[in-house]
């Protein structure tokens, strides 16, 4: 075989992209997926891509899922790379989840509470049997509808706080940071930690949260409350001077209530971990709340020994866009470095033979 300098990388890339487009479309005798179909019928995938892509836009997230052939990390990456080009024209006021139009609200710590337990559209109590009727096209029966309740839904943290049994959130210490505009430095404040977790990889957070339940940084958690519903977002344009409503987001919020033994300065009381996710993402919100609480070990005077309690470890590795990029970059050529390693190993072997 004669050596031919590798040329035509350019043509190879073009051909590969064309093949990819063809593979994405698949069998053309099958109808092409429409964006509204993905947005409506693969809603949980859209929610996850919006959360990890850090951009609330159902249509663009659905487009990203289609373009990425359903690879959700790739889809989140497409969305992030789009998001990063958008100008930032305002900062929203904190979302008021107390005012949420709740579709689902459950508490694990009270049998019943003001506002009640609202199951909502959950898979929790379904039997995981394949529903073969979905092989064909189906029209689901109309779900029963209750009149909207006027009853307030106070948050469980508030109920516990009446007795002083749970820590208070504490006063805000100024504008929250933004890790998309300032690089993360350690130690990182809780604002930045929560931001990183909110867009972190669901699988990574789930594994870390799970590890705290198995004794790697145990926090004895209870689901104080989880609620899913729509919340309005407000901004105050400086030229107007008053707040205007710019739209609604579907959010999932989870407050974990955790044991705290007390310290020299604090009486024993419950502490909390907080999780918030774009869309309907209960697993993500719960895992986030577990990891948030675990990372507070230092500030609460607990011994920090487990991976989930190490903020630098968690925050440096929870972003799946960073992680997938770096893991997959090993596919790039490394032959120059490998050549230097070859020479080094040969040299060591020669030394060893002496």
């Amino acid at each position: 075989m004669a050596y031919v300098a590798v040329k035509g990388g350019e043509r190879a890339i073009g051909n590969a992209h064309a093949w990819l487009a063809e593979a994405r479309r698949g069998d053309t005798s099958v109808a092409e997926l429409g964006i509204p179909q993905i947005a409506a019928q693969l809603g949980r995938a859209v929610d996850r891509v919006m959360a990890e892509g850090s951009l609330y836009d159902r249509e663009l997230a659905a487009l990203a899922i289609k373009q990425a052939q359903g690879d959700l990390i790739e889809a989140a990456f497409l969305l992030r790379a789009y998001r990063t080009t958008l100008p930032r024209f305002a900062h929203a006021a904190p979302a008021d989840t107390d005012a949420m139009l709740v579709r689902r609200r459950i508490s694990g710590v009270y049998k019943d509470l003001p506002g009640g337990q609202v199951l909502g559209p959950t898979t929790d109590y379904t039997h995981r049997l394949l529903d073969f009727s979905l092989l064909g096209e189906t029209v689901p029966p109309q779900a029963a509808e209750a009149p909207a309740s006027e009853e307030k839904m106070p948050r469980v943290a508030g109920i516990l706080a009446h007795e002083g049994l749970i820590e208070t959130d504490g006063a805000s210490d100024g504008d929250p940071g933004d890790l998309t505009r300032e690089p993360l430095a350690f130690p990182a404040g809780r604002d930045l930690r929560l931001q990183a977790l909110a867009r972190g990889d669901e699988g990574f957070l789930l594994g870390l949260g799970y590890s705290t339940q198995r004794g790697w940084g145990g926090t004895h958690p209870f689901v104080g409350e989880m609620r899913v519903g729509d919340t309005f977002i407000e901004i105050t344009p400086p030229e107007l001077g008053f707040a205007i409503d710019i739209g609604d987001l579907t959010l999932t919020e989870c407050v974990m209530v955790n044991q705290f033994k007390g310290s020299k300065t604090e009486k024993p009381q419950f502490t909390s971990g907080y999780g918030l996710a774009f869309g309907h993402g209960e697993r993500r919100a719960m895992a986030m709340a577990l990891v948030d609480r675990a990372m507070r070990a230092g500030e609460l005077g607990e011994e920090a020994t487990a991976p989930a309690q190490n903020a630098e470890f968690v925050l440096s590795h929870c972003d799946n866009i960073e992680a997938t990029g770096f893991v997959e970059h090993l596919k790039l050529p490394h032959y120059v470095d490998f050549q230097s390693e070859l020479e080094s190993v040969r040299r060591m072997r020669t030394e060893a033979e002496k």
Partner: protein
Amino acid sequence: MSSGYNFAYLDEQTKRMLRRAILKAVAIPGHQVPFASREMPLPYGWGTGGIQVTAAIIGPDDVLKVIDQGADDTTNAVSIRHFFARTAGVATTTRTGDATIIQTRHRVPETKLRAGQIVVFQVPQPEPLSRLEPSRAETRRMHALSEYGLMHVKLYEDITRYGHVAISYDYPVMVNFRYLMAPSPIPAFDNPRLHMMPALQLFGAGREKRIYAVPPWTDVRSLDFDDHPFRPARAPHSCGLCGATDSYLDEVVVDDCGGRLFVCSDTDHCETRRGNGMRP
């Protein structure tokens, strides 16, 4: 040029942020400056740091060269060159001498760079101490105190164990007698080229969110000991295409009976030599 995006993809606010980081980096040679790295349309680990640095410094009159492993025609180099041709509409070249900006992964060109040129390195891991101390909070402190004993111990241990320092690429350097710096995964063979280079050297690490720099004519020394001086290595052969005996060589497997061909890793260098009639 594709419409719908700003010149060179990034918005001007982001470029300003990058330029401030670059200026600070140039003012403190070898010091890692944190910056708010953006998501780029290419994945982390594929040159996002270098691309952001290039996007921040490139102008319409610049001529860009992009190499990976020393070659202009490796797929990732092609892809990045396309990216800038598409988003900035700039002229591109494969000739080292013709370029005003050279973005590189894993190599320093064989041709001596001149004053006025800028070489942009893609950096996967900007922290030279990362394999010895994983916490960036701790390594930051070590840099602040010039506390580099840990690295000297690692080199010493290599020498006692193997008879020489067993780092063959990304070999740590001391910049301007002050900061320990990762030169990016260039082979140690390329390290001496960083010393007193007339061109500006910029290093971008996108995923790790760090920019650092070596200004022109700066002292860059590979770490070593008086009795074990730094010794860059290359394959002990000459190029099978142009006959060069002093260039860094790639080893190409030509058959399944141990046949090897050694060729210049710097494709422009090799082609230029062959154009001038050089043969093995």
